[in-house]
Structures are given as C-alpha cells and as structure tokens.
C-alpha cells in the first residue's frame, strides 16, 4: 500500500515537473510549483518525515508562492521563448542525471533497515534522545539540541534573507517623489464576505501558530513552522484590510527589532550556557536537572527561531508589496 501511494505521488510529481518545463505562463508555472511542493509534502509524509512535510507545505506552498506571485506581479507574467535551442542544457542535464543514477547503484535499497545511515549515528538519537533531551519528537531534539548550531545557522540564514531584501528593495524608496495623497491600494476592503470570514480566520490562524510553536516537542511543528503560520496570518490581514492598516498593527520597525532579537535570543541562550560553565548551547547547565535544562533551552531557542522567522517573513512580504505599490 505504502509503495503504491509512493509511486502514484512520484508519478504526479514527474507530471507536474514536465508541465512546468513546458508551460510558458509564469502564473501557471508558479501555481504548478505550489502543487509540486504540496505533492512532495505528501510524499514526505508517506516517508515518515512529518516535520519536513509540514515545513514544505508551509514554505513551498505558502510563502514561496506568495513571494513568487508578488515578484511576478511587478514584472512580466509571460515567459518568452528562448532564442536558442537548449541542446547543450539537455546534454548537461543528461550527463549529470546519468552520473547520479550511476551513483545510486551502490546505495542500499530503498527502505532497508540495515543501511549504514541507520546503524551509525541515528540509533543514539532514537534510543537516547527521549532520556537525554526529553521531547518525544526526536526531530525536535536533534534539531534543537544535538544539532542546535545548525539551527542557529538556519535562523541566521533567514535573517540574512530578510535584511538582504530590505537592503535591495527598500533602498531607493526615498528617491521616488512622494505622492500627495497615498493611492488607495487594491485591497479587498469592499468585499463583505471576505472581511467577515477573514476576521473569523485570522485569530484562529494565530492561535494555531502558537499551538504549533509550543506543541513542537510532542508532534510535528516548532519555531520555524509556527513563525511561518503566524506570518501568514498577518499577511492575510494585510491582504484583506490593506497594507497600511497592517503596517499600523505590525510596523516595519518592530519587525526589524523582532528579527534581530530572535537571533540574539538564540545566541544569548548559547552564551548563557557558556556563562553557566558549559559549552556553547549546552542546555544541561540551564537548570539543576539536565533534562529540565534541555527543556528550557529548547523552549527558548524555538521561541527565538519563531520570532525571527515571523518577523522576517512579514518583512519580506512588506518589502515586495511596498515596492509594487511604489512602482505602479
């Protein structure tokens, strides 16, 4: 049964990919990419990677699509036919692909339990992490504790993307002539149904984000996904009630502050561990009992990740939509 679902999903994915190659309308391409992400999220679920699936669904189908559409709205919606025959590209791809297929020949068969990666490092995570670290969700313990430093790097990456966007898109705003009366941005303000349903949904979305944030120890979820969901709540708000209103609720300045503070919180926890006599990010030192310390540490850094991700995602959305408004 598992295999059948697996193959069906893979086939769907292949069809979507081929469609993306052929389709020339960028809008359709972006939508297909969203479908591609959603399908791969489903595939991740069948392969037991629930956390990954969650993130892929939130990021690939949610944030990526929004960003791509935002960029497309300011540029051109149609792709021109390439002037040259991409034969060389095809050749490169074929060579790379065949090298990869050649490389998989010596890999263990899909799904075998005695592959090297299941024998060497992972067993400790599976057997010891509930005792050493605590959370029943092993992905959370590996992510936040064993490989917590990767997560710090990841938070820094998302932070970088945010400030890169502001640096690139926010820079030449001042040069534009200020409009006397700000043009009424295209919002869905007059749409009664949307407004009411939106009002019902947004609190639920925010609540769900908090659930994901604090439930990450026990099920799929964690700071990153929570941040993305929280941000999508704000994005929905600004779509319905207008960018100006949203920026009064969460100002860009506050976002910059929150984004920085999240990274600093994460790093600060690490430094605190040093101050308390452990290594960097050694949560054991945070409390009398190591497991309590781990719990506290993971809670704090997930909070840092969530804050940064939320702030940066909204920041990115603002950057694109402000730019779009200025150019149009």
């Amino acid at each position, binding site marked *: 049964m598992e295999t059948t679902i697996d193959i069906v999903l893979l086939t769907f994915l292949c069809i979507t990919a081929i469609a993306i190659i052929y389709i020339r309308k960028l809008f359709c391409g972006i939508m297909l990419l969203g479908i591609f992400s959603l399908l791969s999220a489903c595939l991740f679920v069948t392969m037991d990677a629930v956390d990954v699936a969650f993130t892929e669904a939130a990021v690939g189908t949610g944030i990526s699509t929004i960003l791509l559409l935002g960029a497309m709205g300011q540029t051109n919606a149609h792709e021109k036919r390439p002037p040259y025959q991409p034969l060389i590209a095809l050749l490169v791809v074929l060579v790379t692909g065949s090298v990869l297929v050649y490389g998989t020949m010596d890999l263990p068969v899909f799904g075998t339990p005695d592959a090297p990666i299941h024998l060497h490092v992972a067993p400790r995570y599976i057997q010891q992490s509930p005792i050493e670290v605590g959370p029943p969700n092993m992905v959370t313990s590996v992510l936040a504790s064993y490989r917590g430093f990767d997560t710090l790097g990841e938070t820094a990456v998302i932070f970088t993307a945010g400030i890169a966007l502001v640096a690139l898109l926010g820079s030449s705003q001042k040069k534009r002539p200020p409009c006397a009366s700000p043009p009424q941005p295209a919002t869905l303000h007059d*749409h009664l149904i*949307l407004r009411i*349903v939106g009002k019902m949904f947004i609190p639920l979305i925010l609540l769900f984000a908090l659930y994901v944030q604090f439930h990450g120890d026990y099920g799929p979820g964690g700071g990153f996904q929570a941040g993305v969901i929280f941000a999508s709540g704000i994005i929905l708000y600004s779509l319905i009630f207008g960018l100006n209103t949203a920026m009064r609720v969460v100002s860009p300045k506050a976002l910059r502050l929150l984004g920085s503070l999240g990274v600093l919180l994460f790093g600060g926890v690490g430094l605190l561990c040093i101050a308390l006599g452990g290594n960097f990010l050694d949560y054991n030192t945070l409390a009398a009992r190591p497991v309590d310390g781990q719990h506290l540490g993971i809670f704090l850094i997930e909070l840092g990740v969530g804050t940064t991700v939320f702030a940066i995602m909204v920041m990115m959305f603002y950057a694109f939509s402000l730019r779009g408004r200025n150019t149009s």
Partner: protein
Amino acid sequence: MTILDITTALCLTAGCFLGITGGFGIYRLPDFYTRLHASSVTDSACAFLILFGLMLQSGFTLATVKLCFIFFFLVLSSTTATHALAKTARSRGLEPLLGREDKR
C-alpha cells in the same frame, strides 16, 4: 467487515468519484464560471464525504476532533475562495460563455 467499515468504504468511494468528476469537469467544461461549479463539487461534497469516512474509522479520538476542525475550515475557506474567485472574475469583466447564443 463491520457496518462502519462498509459505510466508510462507500463514503470514500463516493468522495473519490466526486473528486475525479470535479477534476474532469475543470478540464472539460468550456469557461471559467462552469469550471467554478466543477471545482466546488470537489471542495464541498467530495471533501466532506472523505472526511466523514475517515471520521467513522477514527472513532472518538483526538484525530476526529482534528478532522472536524479541517471540515470546519474547509467549509469556510472553500466557499469564500469560490466567492472571491467569481467576484474577481466578474469585476475584471470576464463574461460567461454559456448562455450566449453568438458564441456557441
């Protein structure tokens, strides 16, 4: 094979059938507004039947509550989305194809 299982199977089969019909409709129907009809079939009846079938299987557990939430969410969001789509299409000046003699 209890009665519950049979009901589940029926629900799922019907849901799947409606889903396929919806997809087929989107592909075959001539214009935007008729396609909207097809997609709302998938959104409403198909999703509901599948969710109901699953709820029967999960019994009184947390999973059922979550399924209920999904159902609630779907009811609200899919209807609103359809509404928004139709309204946008109308305000952008997309004319329905069916019912206009000169086009057929």
